[in-house]
């Protein structure tokens, strides 16, 4: 692949930061560029429900950005929620931003038009805060691109009081270290409450006119807020290639940063006005979040681990949000989002009520994202199939029962076949199955079993319809921080490619099974960024300077940029990505606390290697992972009766319908007795 001849992005400087009128409304300077680029509608805003915020000196202004294109970033609920909450306050104002496509950034740099917000087309660099939602690691170079396009120095150390504070949150922020030199402030956990705390902490500073040399002091003040991590307040020392310690520089800075957790989702019925874009975006439907957190304990899943405990939205509130949302937006499809929606206690009632509501004229379809096969019942299938259908997605993740015990996704083959049969029998034609390859202890037989499962599903479907098909989506496994697999050495890209080939061979010429897979080289770099430390920051910077933006897009990903950058920094991909880590190693993210005890994670890693599974703790005894006890919060469920007759293999009589007492149990629990 050709490495572009490019000696770095054209430097972008804002007009004087005090020239408010120049930065206020950039639209007259943006418009002439739009006929020269693809999809100009990405840059106009004007969504139904978008705010017209009024800025003032008495308000802290937030520029909240998703570091990808408009089509990918617009549906992000987190950003919409935070913007609504901030705009409701008297002391804050918030606008959204996204990263312009390469054709537009070229025009912007050539014409000195800086990165702008979409509500009022205001220069991003004129906001008090520029914040990013980090959902994935391959967008890190986009973060640098956005900061630079805003006319802000990309390194923390080069910024002064005239520049915004650069912040980041989201799941990838739980290992903040690779961007530690480029992001002033990270925020861990739920953002609803902490954005208010941060706003209040900054009001006095802004009112005082942000005096010279005050930036470090204000960052230090922010570091005292729970959930806030200011990398500059910590020193990382090395012992050779290993991390020796990560220590706070001041006594009043916490040793460990605890995430924020919103205890009651019912208090936060956001977004109240989901944005409806004028142009095409992904996930283009009404999205209603039904719960946060997950108790299934799948060992590969970072999202499930770091968002504990479970907090369900009250079923009545879900129903209201759906109804009001559909009426207001004119969408004809609603998606009930969470990590495992079929586990939502009120799911069948909610779906039934939505689909059956006469106000919806029988024209609304409900989509449920990636479903657990042991919770997807014929009853649910019947409800969801009443209106138009999108495809159905299941995520078995591993090809054999043995492997599923290793990853703690305790579903047996018959669970999958049962769910798929429920779906086909209710009229669905297309299934999508998600699998991972490169999991710990995976053997070739486990890998080829993936293809066998897919083929068997198609055979089941053929009993019901001529059009039965299965899309097999295969991803290379990337171990993540704060999971029991964080010590596992990732398969390198050659090994992942070999495994993908195995599956392809096993699928053979079966035209009903469509295999899709992720580029294993991109998985390698995802691994580098997700478990990297501060030294990786310079690698990211080099890749950005070489023109490596939009690395999460297949057409732009370039492995050579990364390997060359690693070499220039004297760092080893093998050491960061494919090496197995030791129990006594200091992990780069250890000072960030997602609520899980490190010894719980290590023990779970050992249990995994021994092939033991742990049941869902929402309905069964607690394993003291730390998530609930740490925060004094319990799992909040919308109904005491578990869905689908109860979780796997618990043996408890759950038909009684009263609350299940929580008792601490010894470890480990035995895996489900089913074959």
């Amino acid at each position, binding site marked *: 692949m050709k490495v572009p001849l490019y000696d770095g992005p054209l430097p972008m400087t804002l007009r004087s930061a005090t020239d408010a009128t120049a930065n206020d409304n950039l639209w007259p300077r943006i418009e002439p560029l739009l006929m020269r680029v693809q999809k100009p509608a990405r840059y106009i805003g004007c969504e139904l429900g978008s705010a017209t915020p009024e800025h003032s000196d008495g308000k802290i202004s937030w520029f909240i950005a998703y570091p990808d294109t408009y089509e990918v970033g617009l549906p992000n609920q987190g950003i919409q929620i935070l913007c609504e909450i901030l705009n409701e306050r008297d002391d804050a104002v918030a606008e959204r931003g996204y990263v312009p496509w390469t054709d537009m950034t070229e025009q912007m740099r050539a014409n000195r038009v800086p990165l702008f917000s979409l509500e009022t087309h205001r220069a991003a660099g004129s906001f008090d805060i520029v914040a990013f939602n980090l959902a994935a690691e391959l967008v890190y170079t986009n973060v640098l691109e956005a900061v630079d396009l805003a006319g802000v120095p990309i390194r923390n150390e080069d910024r002064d009081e005239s520049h915004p504070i650069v912040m980041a949150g989201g799941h990838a922020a739980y290992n903040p270290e690779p961007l530690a030199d480029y992001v002033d402030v990270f925020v861990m956990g739920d953002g609803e409450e902490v954005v208010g705390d941060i706003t209040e902490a900054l009001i006095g500073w802004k009112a005082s006119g942000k005096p010279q040399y005050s930036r470090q002091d204000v960052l230090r003040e922010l570091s005292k807020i729970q959930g806030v991590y200011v990398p500059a307040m910590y020193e990382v020392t090395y012992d050779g290639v290993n991390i020796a310690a990560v220590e706070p520089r001041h006594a009043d800075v916490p040793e460990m940063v605890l995430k924020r957790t919103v205890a009651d989702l019912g208090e936060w019925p956001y977004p109240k006005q989901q944005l409806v874009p004028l142009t095409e975006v992904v996930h283009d439907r009404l999205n209603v979040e039904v719960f946060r957190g997950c108790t299934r304990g799948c060992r590969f899943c970072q999202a499930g681990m770091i968002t504990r405990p479970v907090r369900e939205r009250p079923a009545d509130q879900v129903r209201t949000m759906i109804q009001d949302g559909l*009426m207001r937006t004119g969408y004809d499809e609603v998606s009930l989002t969470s990590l495992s929606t079929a586990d939502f206690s009120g799911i069948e009632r909610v779906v039934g009520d939505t689909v059956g509501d006469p106000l919806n004229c029988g024209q609304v379809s409900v989509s449920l994202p990636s479903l657990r096969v042991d919770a997807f019942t014929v009853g649910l299938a019947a409800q969801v199939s009443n209106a138009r259908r999108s495809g159905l997605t299941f995520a078995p993740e591993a090809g054999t029962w043995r492997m599923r015990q290793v990853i703690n996704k305790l579903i047996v083959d018959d669970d999958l076949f049962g769910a798929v049969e429920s779906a086909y029998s209710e009229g669905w034609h297309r299934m999508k199955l998600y699998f991972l390859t490169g999991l710990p202890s995976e053997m070739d037989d486990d890998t080829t079993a993936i293809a066998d499962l897919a083929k068997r599903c198609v055979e089941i479907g053929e009993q019901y319809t001529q059009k039965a098909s299965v899309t097999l989506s295969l991803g290379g496994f990337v171990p993540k921080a704060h999971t029991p697999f964080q010590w596992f050495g990732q398969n390198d890209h050659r090994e992942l490619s070999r495994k993908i080939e195995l599956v392809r061979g096993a699928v053979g010429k079966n035209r009903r099974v469509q295999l899709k897979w992720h580029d294993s080289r991109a998985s390698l770099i995802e691994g580098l960024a997700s478990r990297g430390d501060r030294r990786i920051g310079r690698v990211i910077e080099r890749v950005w300077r070489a023109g490596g933006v939009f690395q999460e897009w297949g057409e732009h990903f370039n492995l050579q940029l990364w390997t060359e950058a690693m070499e220039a920094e004297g760092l080893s991909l093998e050491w960061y990505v494919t090496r197995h880590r030791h129990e006594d190693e200091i992990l780069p993210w250890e000072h960030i606390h997602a609520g899980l005890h490190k010894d719980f994670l290590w023990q779970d890693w050992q249990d995994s290697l021994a092939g033991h599974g742990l049941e869902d703790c929402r309905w069964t005894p607690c394993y003291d992972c730390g998530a609930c006890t740490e925060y004094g919060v319990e799992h909040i469920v919308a109904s005491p009766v578990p869905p689908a007759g109860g979780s796997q293999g618990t043996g408890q009589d759950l038909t009684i319908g009263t609350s299940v007492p929580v008792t601490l149990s010894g470890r480990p629990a035995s895996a489900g007795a089913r074959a």
Partner: protein
Amino acid sequence: MRSRTGGRPVRLRVRFTKRGKVRYTGHRDVARIWERAIRRVGLPVVYTEGFSPRPKVSFGLALPTGYQSDGEYLDISVHPGASGEPGVFDGVGPTTGTQLEPAGLMTLLNEALPVGMDVQAIELNDDRGESLQQAITTCSWRFEIRDFDVADATEAVAKLLSARELPSTRLHKGNERSDDLRPAVHRLEVQGTGNDGAVLVADLAAKPRLVRPSELVSILAPGHEMAGAARIHQWIETDGARREPVPFDATPAPHTEMCAS
């Protein structure tokens, strides 16, 4: 296709503008915007049959992305109201239980549409009439040529109009097509100076294909960009006379009528 009340569906022919920032959306975006607006207003639109029912809406000639317009059209197929009164419909969805009347319908639609898309007039007519795509023969356009002054523009226009043929090659769906543009240019004039350069107006044929002003700019001023382009009229020409599908008087009159034709 029969409606709930047993009456045949009626066709609403809607005339609307596309101005301001919304001009940067594409034709498919406009279709989606209308679909959602209709649903929010609760207009009892007829749905297509089949596996994936869609509202029965058909558009006139597509407007290229980036152009403004003083008059775009769409036809909506609607179930008539139980009362039988023309132009009165029974709301569905959010307006279930209410009646949608002409003036109220216009207001509701305008509230449901983005800024810059405004309904100017609605005509009620026969579902079996000619489709918009078939009926339109010519369009009037206004556009500017960036950094091109009036003197140069006047000279270029005279040269173009005096030419006997204007060969032009363009890419259409990945293939190169050549044709002669001259017969498509019915009128071309320089009007004055605008924000970015000379302002021109043109009447261009829509049949056998829609000719765009950008094609003229490549001939008049190669290397210059077009700016501020707008479609100002769409015409149905018959026997030497021409009319718009739904007339609209641009002089200030905030309400317009629904008329049976």
